[in-house]
């Protein structure tokens, strides 16, 4: 794997807000190509701000961000035109899907909305057509190409929004709480699209406050008060139940159960997130106890 994104002492202060307290402060991390990372944190922890720095919707006020070899830092002395080119070449590499599908669809016909990104890139019309069809196929919405988004369900609208981002052929897609407004079915649809895109080699960053969703990623980053608190695979992260609870985060239910059993004196591992695995462990322990 090769490096895709690198943040060095990344800091961001919203102008005229919070008395100059940084929303993101001194974050250092690297993300490899093709990774599936979940970013956790309660409201105001800086997780959404961090995501907006990754595709330069917000420009860092301190430190630097490097995306696919393109480095951006505050003291950069490149002229405006050069900077703008930098920003747009980062944005076409890092797409972003937001929470409310209604507020990110631009056109009143599905395929025209998906075409919006490629149209902005100035591609010729036959290339746009190709990308639109490909992107709609990738999210399994080709049959709805001529429909109006208004007639679709939340999950379907969100898939159209994903297709719109996908049509720009980004290397990485950030999902900023993209499942938060959906019903369970819509959430499953979006998660499965997310994971199939990751299998195709797209780097996926999933910002969420659903622990069960975060547990599906290969790596979890926990943000608190603008700082990166924990960074590691789900098992390691969820093993630190005390720390997570201290900053007001829940853990997956299976993890919570094992945590409480362990506190009651049973010898069970921490960090297990899969309910089936947890059930197996408890069953095994039960058999052991019965034999004694």
């Amino acid at each position, binding site marked *: 794997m090769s490096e895709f994104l690198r943040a060095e002492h990344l800091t961001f202060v919203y102008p005229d807000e919070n008395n100059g307290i940084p929303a993101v402060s001194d974050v250092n991390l690297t993300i490899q190509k093709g990774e599936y990372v979940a970013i956790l944190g309660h409201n105001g922890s800086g997780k959404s701000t961090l995501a907006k720095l990754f595709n330069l*919707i917000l420009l860092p006020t301190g430190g630097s961000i490097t995306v696919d070899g393109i480095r951006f830092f505050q003291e950069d002395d490149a002229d405006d035109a050069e900077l703008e080119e930098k920003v747009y070449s980062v*944005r076409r590499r890092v797409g972003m899907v937001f929470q409310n599908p*209604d507020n*990110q669809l631009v056109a009143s016909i599905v395929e025209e909305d998906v075409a919006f990104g490629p149209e*902005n*890139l100035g591609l*010729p019309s036959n290339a*746009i057509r190709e990308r639109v069809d490909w992107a709609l196929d990738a999210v399994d919405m080709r049959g709805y190409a001529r429909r*109006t988004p208004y007639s679709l369900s939340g999950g379907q609208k969100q898939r159209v929004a994903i297709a719109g981002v996908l049509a*720009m052929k980004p290397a990485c897609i950030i999902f900023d709480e993209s499942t938060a407004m959906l019903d369970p079915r819509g959430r499953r649809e979006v998660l499965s699209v997310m994971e199939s895109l990751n299998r195709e080699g797209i780097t996926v960053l999933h910002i969420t406050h659903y622990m069960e969703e975060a547990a599906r990623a290969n790596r979890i980053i926990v943000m608190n008060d603008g700082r990166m608190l924990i960074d590691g695979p789900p098992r390691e992260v969820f093993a630190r139940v005390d720390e997570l609870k201290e900053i007001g985060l829940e853990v997956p239910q299976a993890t919570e159960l094992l945590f409480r059993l362990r506190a009651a004196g049973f010898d069970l591992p921490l960090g297990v997130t899969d309910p089936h695995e947890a059930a197996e462990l408890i069953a095994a322990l039960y058999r052991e106890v019965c034999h004694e």
Partner: protein
Amino acid sequence: MLKDITLGQYLPGDSFLYRLDPRVKIGATILSLVAYFSARSLYAFGLLTLLTALLVFLSGISFRVILRAIRPVVAVLLIMGILVLFTTKGAGEPYFSLSVFSLFDLEIYPEGIARAVLFSLRIVLLVVSTCLFLTYTTTPTSLTDALASVLSPLTILRVPVYDFAMMMTIALRFIPTLAEETDKIMSAQKARGADFSSGSLIRRARALIPILIPLFASSFRRAGELATAMECRCYRGGAGRTKLRVFRLRVWDLLFLFLCGAILASVFLLNTWLPTGISL
């Protein structure tokens, strides 16, 4: 009901009118407008009425729908028609004369009748052909794109034509969303005891304030989020954008436009060669 707003008055169908380039339809609408208003000869009127009827027949749109299009203008036509009828002074004897309190005379001349009828006919023809060309057979999106394409030469004068087109597209996209939101807010306010349907006009207007304020607040929030989402998808204004659908003029489109031009020319010829007695 809400879904109707999204597509405007567009009626899905498949006749030659649907297949015409929307830019040609805009051109045809303008040409027909000029033709209706420059017609001076009764023969020209006859020709235009006949051709418009033929257009209705070929469009495949039912007569009932056409009547529905005319209905909203009937009241205006009646009032204007009556005004024209009584204000036209003819050369000969009036058919009818009535002195009102000896202040002014109500008189009807044969010229007045002719003018009133032709005036109404003009408006009816205009409404029918505009509906046929632009609203019934063209989707709002392709109409917006076509307008942008027709007006694109104005970009030389730094008129942001494509940005206006983008604004139109977004407005059309958000009409059903905001309509739905209005419904929700109304229900929420009703649940809190708001009353929108009784009291004087002023009272009812004031009852709308608790709907409009949350609606505006949420529209601004939506606008902000949409702008961010558009920036994420590399939107940087109209310049340098390409389109998924490119309009291409085919032979049939040019032929149709030529036909419209020929009709306009024949209206002018009929005005000159076969003038009728009435001054219109």
